[in-house]
């Protein structure tokens, strides 16, 4: 009854059954979060370090809350203000933290594959909270959970992922997950932000016209234009992007059906999504954030089942 993997490095490594187990468990944690006392003692004996080498608001707070709601002990590490600036390597930093008896590592890093590297060298369970432009598995899981709640399932549903596909780890994790669960995926956005191999490599539909993509889908997952990852000019200006690919209420109202709008945050208001669309009743952006805690609780809970923590008689 546990997951098929010791770490959550990416959706790519999960089976369909794993994903179902996580979503099913998250459903019950969502109920826990409605109680007067929103806390269960499951991970009372577990210490988790949140290792954030890259900025984050939602993911870090969400993980920390999930850990606290599971009664785990948590420590937070951010690269700025730590010995990383003195030149300590990733592995040294983590080994030093682990020597203080830490059982699980939640990590975000700007280098793709950083958690995979770590998984090869340390005994603790690792949860990837976003690595470079590779994967962001818990985001994809909470997106799937939110889609399920909004449209009643995943199988056979049509999901459009719109925006900066090339630099987006959210897009990649979402594609893996949605396809494993039997949903249809279209990626849409400017040609310069969609790699030419998308169709071939991932078997997704590619659409360069946002309105057509919206017309096709049940749910639109709108991605952030990642200004910090744009080294070369891939579109001429934010204003032009917003005119050609931005989504606003007027565009949504012109469609023949009501499309559910999602966004992993943080929103560039007025760029990929206008305020009237982001705050409309079609948007489930805040539900996504709410569901994030339950989904992350489920991931931590299920991964902890594979661990032998220091409290067990066998020891480590």
């Amino acid at each position: 009854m546990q997951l098929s993997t010791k770490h959550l490095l990416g959706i790519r490594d999960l089976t369909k059954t794993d994903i179902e187990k996580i979503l099913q468990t998250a459903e019950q944690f969502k109920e826990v979060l409605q109680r007067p006392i929103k806390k269960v003692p499951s991970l009372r004996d577990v210490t988790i370090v949140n290792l954030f080498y890259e900025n984050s608001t939602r993911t870090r707070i969400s993980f920390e809350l999930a850990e606290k709601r599971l009664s785990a002990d948590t420590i937070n590490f951010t690269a700025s203000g730590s010995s990383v600036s003195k030149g300590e390597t990733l592995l040294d930093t983590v080994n030093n933290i682990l020597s203080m008896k830490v059982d699980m590592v939640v990590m975000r890093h700007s280098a793709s594959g950083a958690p995979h590297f770590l998984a090869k060298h340390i005994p603790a369970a690792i949860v990837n909270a976003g690595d470079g432009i590779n994967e962001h598995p818990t985001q994809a899981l909470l997106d799937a959970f939110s889609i399920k709640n909004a449209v009643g399932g995943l199988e056979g549903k049509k999901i459009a992922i719109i925006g900066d596909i090339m630099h987006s780890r959210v897009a990649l994790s979402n594609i893996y997950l949605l396809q494993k669960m039997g949903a249809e995926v279209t990626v849409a956005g400017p040609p310069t932000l969609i790699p030419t191999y998308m169709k071939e490599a991932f078997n997704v539909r590619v659409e360069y016209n946002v309105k057509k993509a919206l017309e096709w889908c049940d749910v639109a997952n709108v991605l952030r234009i990642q200004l910090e990852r744009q080294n070369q000019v891939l579109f001429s200006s934010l204003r032009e992007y917003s005119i050609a690919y931005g989504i606003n209420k007027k565009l949504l109202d012109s469609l023949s059906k009501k499309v559910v709008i999602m966004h992993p945050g943080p929103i560039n208001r007025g760029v990929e999504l206008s305020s009237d669309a982001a705050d409309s009743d079609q948007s489930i952006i805040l539900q996504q954030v709410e569901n994030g805690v339950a989904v992350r609780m489920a991931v931590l809970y299920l991964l902890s089942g594979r661990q032998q923590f220091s409290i067990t008689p066998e020891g480590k």
Partner: protein
Amino acid sequence: MKLVLNEQQLDLTIRRLSHQILENHPDLKETVIIGMQPRGVYLSDRIVRNLSDMSGKPTVLYGKLDITFYRDDFRNELHIPNQTDIPFSIENKTVILIDDVLYTGRTVRAAMDALLDYGRPARVALCVLIDRRFSRQLPIQPDYTGRSIDSIITQKVKVLWSENEGRDEVVLLDE
């Protein structure tokens, strides 16, 4: 395999338990019934049905409690949790916890912990169909007992329900 209760005996026992509960809680206003997931719910379903038939009050406060997250052994055997559904406040109410088999007492311990996260009940009572006496690992005793049996650690009590297994029966299995 030894038969502990046949269909008719099981039905009589559940009726007796329902009568005993009603005897102590004649107006079911301040009393709530909580069935323990997954297997206690079959019993609590029937008791609740009996209670509303016998008292003439169709609305008995009835909830279901899953204790997966409160287990002290969850890491040895991970379970996918069942649904917890307690759509009312248990504050200052008398809670009657219902489960099919009482063995080591650890499940009931977890259930009490879980229950207290929903509020502070005035009192918690325990009702079980089968009490495997002399095998407790914690100081927990039932208030309402269907049948007490003596069993050894290698034996297993199996309660079969027509909703799930196609017949109503309680058997003692030798492993």
